[in-house]
C-alpha cells in the first residue's frame, strides 16, 4: 500500500496518540520511525489495506464525524485525543470499533518491530542464533 505523504503523517500522529510511552525509558510509538513499516503494509490483502486507509480517514476527521467538532484529530490537545479514542473504542457501530482495532493492530505490529522496543521488553532474550 502506498500511503500518501499526508496519510503517512496522519498515521504517525494516530500511532503516537494510541500508544504513548508505556513506561519510563521506553519510547512511545510517536518516538520511533514507523515509516518503513507503513510501507510493509503492502503485504496485506486489498480489503485490509482499504481498512487501514479508512481508519486513518475516520480518526483524522473523527472530531467532525463522531463528536461534531470542526477540527481534525491532530489539532486536538492530548486529553481530547484520548477522549476521542476512548469513544471510538466503545462506539455502538461495529465497523467504527473494528477500524480502531485494525489501527491498534497495525501500530502494535510496527511498534514491536523496532529493535529498541524489542530490547526494552527483552523480547528476543532467549534466541541466540538461528539454526543454519
Amino acid at each position, binding site marked *: 500500500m502506498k500511503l500518501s505523504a499526508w496519510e503517512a503523517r496522519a498515521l504517525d500522529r494516530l500511532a503516537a496518540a494510541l500508544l504513548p510511552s508505556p513506561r519510563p525509558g521506553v519510547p512511545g510509538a510517536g518516538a520511533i520511525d514507523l515509516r518503513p513499516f507503513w510501507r510493509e503494509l503492502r503485504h496485506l490483502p486489498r480489503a485490509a489495506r482499504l481498512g487501514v486507509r479508512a481508519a486513518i480517514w475516520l480518526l483524522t476527521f473523527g472530531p467532525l464525524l463522531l463528536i461534531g467538532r470542526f477540527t481534525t484529530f491532530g489539532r486536538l490537545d492530548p486529553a481530547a485525543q484520548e477522549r476521542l479514542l476512548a469513544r471510538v473504542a466503545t462506539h455502538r457501530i461495529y465497523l467504527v470499533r473494528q477500524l480502531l482495532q485494525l489501527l491498534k493492530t497495525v501500530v502494535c505490529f510496527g511498534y514491536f518491530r523496532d529493535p529498541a522496543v524489542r530490547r526494552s521488553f527483552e523480547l528476543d532474550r*532467549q534466541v541466540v542464533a538461528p539454526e543454519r
Partner: protein
Amino acid sequence: MIQVASLHDTPEGAPELSADVEVVIIGSGAAGAAAARRLARGGVRVLIVEEGPAVAPSQFVSDSFGAMAQLYRDAGAQVAFGPAFLPVLQGRCVGGSTVFNGAICWRLPRDVWQEWVAADPALEGGLPWEAIERALDEVERDLEVAPTDPAIAGRKNELMARGAAALGLEGRPTRRNVRGCEGLGRCLQGCPRGHKLGMDRTYLPEARTAGATLWAGCRVDAIAWRGTRALGVRGTTFSGGRFTVRASRAVVLAASAVQSPVLLQRSNIGDGPVGEGFQAHPGVSVAGRFDEPVRMWEGATQGYEVIGLRREGLKFEALGFGAEILAMRLPGAGAEFARAVGEMDRWADWGCAVRARARGTVRPSGRSGVKIRYALTDEDLGRVRRGVRVLGELLFAAGARAVACGVHGFAEQIDSPKALARFEEEGPRDPRAYPMAMTHLFGTCRMGSDPRTSVVRPDFRHHRIENLYVVDSSVFPTNIGVNPQNSILALATVAADGILRA
C-alpha cells in the same frame, strides 16, 4: 534431516513447466505431506504442487507481522464475513499451517467418529476406526508426540495448571510434536531452531527421500478432467509463468478446507454440497493480569490445556504468541493502553476453542480470491459466553488480579470472579461483541455415501470423478472439538493407503 530449502525443486527460469507423473498432490500441508509420503514410499511417482514458498528455519523471523507476511495466507488477514468479521488463519508455505501451528497434538476422539457413523453408517466400513487408530499411532511415533516437558513449560503454562487444579477442572500438559524444544515460544512464527516437527521437517523430506518431487511457488488454478477421469492440473508459478501436470493415476486435493472446495468450484466440479458445511472452532481469549512476571511470549508456546469440558464443546489452552499480538489484546487506547503495554510482562492470555454448530460457505471470489461466509448460532454464542466465564475463572484461580475479556458492552477489566457468573447469563448475544479467530477448519467437501449430501465417498474418492481424491479436513463430516493436525495426518494416510490399493 534434510533441510527444507532443498525441497524447492522447481526448475529455475523455466518459462513453461510441465510434468508427467502418476499422482499429483495439490498442497503440502498436513494432508498433502502425509499422502505424499505414503504414496512415495509405496513406489508411486508423486509430484506435490505448493502455492507458497519454501522457508527454512534460519529464515524465520521473530516479529509476528513479518512471520505472517512470510508464512500465512494473505499475511494473516483472511476473514470470514457474517454479522462479525472473523479472522481465518491458514498457512501458505511448504508444510502449510504445520510450519507455524501451536504443535498441540490430539487423537481424533472416538466419540466424534461414532457421531459420523451414526449419521452415515456407510462410514463404519469405509473409514474403519481400526485404520484410523493405526494411522494415529504411526503419526504420534513419527512426530515424537509427547507431553510438554515441565522444564521448558514457562510460567503461563504453570499458572494454567494451577488455575485448573484450584477449580477442579481436568487439565494436562499438552502433547506436542517437538524434538528438543527449548521453550522459545515462537511456534506461531515458525520455530527458529527447527524443533517443531512440522511437515517441512518430517514427512516432506521423507517423501522426497522416497522419490517425490515438490514444486514450491506454484499455484494450481484448475483441475483438468474429462467425463469421470481427472487428467491433471494446470496453474501459475510465483513469477507468472504457466505450468501443467498430467497425472496418469490420480489427482489428490489437499489444499485445505478453504482452498480445496474453491479449486473444485473453479474447475467446474461443483457437484453436491461443495463449499457448503464450512465448520470451525472459533477461538475466544481472555487476558489476565498477575502480580508476578509471566512473560507469556516465553516458554513452550502452548504447553497446557484444560480438557474437562471437551464434551460440552469447550477446550481451553494457554496461548503463546508474539508480544505484539498480546499487546493488541490489551484494553484501552492511549494512556490506559500504554500502561497495560508497560506491564505487559504480567499479562497472560488464555484461549477457548469452541466446537461451534454453525455451518458456513466457501466460494471463489474474483480471479483467485475466496469468500467465506459464517455466522455463529445462538447456541454457539452461549458456548462462547460460557468459555469466556471459565477462562476468567481459571485466570482468577491462578492468581490474576484483573481480567480483560475484550467483550464490547462489558467492563474492560474486572477484578472479581463474581461478575463472570453474571456474564454467562447476561453477556451480549451479538457475535460482533466478541473478538474471535478461527484456525481449525472443516467440512466443505463432506465425506458420505449420498452424492446429494456429500462430495467424496467414504474412501475419499470424488463421487463422480473416480480418480480425484480429497484428503484434507474438508472431508470431515463435522468439526471435531480438538486440535485437528494429527487427525488430518491420520486420515490422509488412510486415504493414501486406499489409493495404493486402488
